[in-house]
């Protein structure tokens, strides 16, 4: 997966608790993304980052925050988890130029009970 590691791979948490998902990359890519995958919706962009401390909102950012204090790490935080945030979360990086494209991590399956 082009050096992208997501942790944890699976998590069950209770409604109202904060949760942080981590994405780690080893290839110094500038752009990083968080998507969520839900049946019938495909993948939807939550937040993305274009550099250290530079982030922006995606299509479904409500209830989520992100941080990027180092190039290699992009954290997604659910401030107060709700059942509607039960989903599979994917981190991705993009490569520019002739090899332009996105590469995805293996995903984190989050269940909020």
């Amino acid at each position: 997966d082009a050096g992208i590691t997501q942790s944890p791979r699976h998590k069950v948490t209770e409604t109202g608790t904060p949760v942080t998902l981590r994405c780690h990359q080893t290839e110094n890519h500038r752009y990083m993304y968080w998507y969520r995958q839900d049946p019938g919706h495909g993948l939807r962009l939550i937040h993305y980052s274009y550099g250290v401390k530079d982030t922006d909102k995606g299509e479904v950012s409500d209830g989520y925050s992100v941080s990027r204090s180092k190039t290699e790490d992009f954290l997604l935080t659910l401030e107060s988890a709700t059942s509607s945030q039960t989903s599979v979360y994917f981190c991705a990086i993009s490569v520019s130029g002739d090899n332009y494209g996105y590469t995805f991590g293996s995903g984190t399956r989050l269940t909020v009970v």
Partner: protein
Amino acid sequence: AQSVTQLDSQVPVFEEAPVELRCNYSSSVSVYLFWYVQYPNQGLQLLLKYLSGSTLVKGINGFEAEFNKSQTSFHLRKPSVHISDTAEYFCAVTPFYNTDKLIFGTGTRLQVFP
């Protein structure tokens, strides 16, 4: 804004038969187009992409897609499928001027039967 429509949520097909997975997009500007495959309990893997040049794009595992600008389509084809092609397939688009946001269709589940 851009959008992607995958017209079929499920496509059942017998092994060794040809298959076409349909993808249409909407955009007022030029776009880059992608097909990704997701095997059960795995992440997304790039099958192929169209950035420019020849409108017929060949990808991995014997898949190909044709970009049709006039019909705003990017259909995925394989002449003979295998059981191992059973997976979910996603079409995605990004505008050429702002490649920060890859927009996905809702996916097509390809089920190959023996």
